[in-house]
């Protein structure tokens, strides 16, 4: 099965850790949606709490990671808080 750009982005985001827990952003359930439109990626992500002081830095970090995927030339990462993150969104383990 061919590896899509979406898979590559997801794989890249598995390399971005939440510095508190050591778990990656996908496992933390902080990435809500990944959309690929040609060479442009759009990501919806959240933080564990709405006022998180790292929110913008995490957003910029995700943007940088996504732009590192070959074939992606532009990226827009949106911070969203609906639905709010809860620990139930974390992957088991």
């Amino acid at each position, binding site marked *: 099965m061919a590896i899509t750009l979406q898979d590559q982005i997801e794989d890249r985001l598995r390399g*971005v*850790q939440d*510095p*508190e*827990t*050591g778990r990656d952003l996908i496992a933390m359930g902080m990435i809500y949606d990944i959309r690929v439109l040609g060479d442009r990626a759009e990501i919806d992500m959240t933080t*564990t*709490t*709405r*006022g*998180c*002081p*790292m929110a913008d*830095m*995490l957003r*910029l*970090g*995700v*943007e*940088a*990671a996504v*732009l*590192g995927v070959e074939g*992606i*030339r*532009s*990226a*827009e990462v949106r911070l969203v*808080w609906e639905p709010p993150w*809860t*620990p*139930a969104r*974390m992957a088991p383990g």
Partner: protein
Amino acid sequence: MAWFGAALLFLLLSLTLALGGAVGPSDWSRGVGLAGVHLFTLGWLCLAMLGALIQFVPVLAARPPVLPVLALPALLAGIGGTVALATGFLWLDGHEAVRGAFLVAPVLLAVAFGLAAAMIVPLLLVRASHKLAEVQLALVALAALWASGAAMTYNLSGIDLMPAFLPDGLGLHVLLGVAGWLSLAAFGVSYTLFAMFLLAPEGGAALRLAVRLAAGLTLGLILLAGMLLLVQGVVPAVLLWCLTALLPAVVALYLAEVARIWRLRRRADPEGNMRWSRVALAFLGLAALLAGPALWLGGRWAEAAIFVALVGWLSLLTLAQMVKIVSFLTWIQVFAPLIGRAPVPLVHHLTDPRATTRWLSLWGGGGAVGGLALLLVQPLVFRLSVAALLLAALGLGAELVAIRRLSHLDPQKRPATLPPVIFPAPDKRSAHDHARTA
């Protein structure tokens, strides 16, 4: 960070004075003793709490900080007010030259609290801040604490603003400070911070509402007692009975809510800050049990209850969380810009858990032994406990500096330039640092 740095210096100074014999069982009313007590309560705990509120209320309210430019003048006024008050108390020991400092202290503290309130209160009025109701109550208590303290200060100087307040109002002043301002502020911020650190859902609306109502009623009764003392010169026994029942009830409800958060955590192995916060909560429970005897019997019971609350509950909680907060803020300063671009360490890699455990254990042990020494009126044992507390505070202070210097991190992972130990580094990033397109 500057608030925490100043607070730690006051902690070391107050413990040094205590070790030098400024205070001891049944010996708290000399000028130098009152100076030491206020360096601890006002300089250490109050400044650390104000710094924490200025840092975390915007996070918890999910709003940008309000008037951040006021933080430095508020801190300077707080430091000045604390130094002036402590110096002024020496006037009671016959140092006539320092009387002026005594008179100016309430003014400086009013400026400090007013500026801090201007930063915090607007954030407490937004809808997202309904979870911070205890902080609102805490600020009401702080205002009353300042008023009662200012009245007593001027009383001692021979200016009778509220003649009936001293010495009968001393107990209420202590209650406003320990149970009202400091404990309620700690309650208010701890729910969300504990849930964040433990990866637990917050929820718990019913229990939290019960804490809020019981705490509001308790604070209302303390304020009523203060007013009756001013008007009638006496606090009715029925009010004391109510407080005897309410103080442990508020604590029991709060502990039940924290226990609920702990049970629902997704973090199987909590970090040291939370494990030691649990010990601090045990001290809170102990202080609540001692509250009744303290209210009715006073003397050594009151000394032990207040010591356990200030040293075991509030200070241990503050010290444990300070290690976490300092490492977290340092990580943000140094490594957050590298997220997604380069490998970064985890926040806890900046700390040395064994060193932290060693010093927090010593602090907890010193708190327990000191409380017992006050209850049993053992001056020598009390002095030894203060020595342990001072050693623990020095160790933790060194550990915090090590965290700021990234000393526990593999040298290869350290950046070429380290952040300043106290003041934040100027933000040199620009929009060009994060190009949006490849």
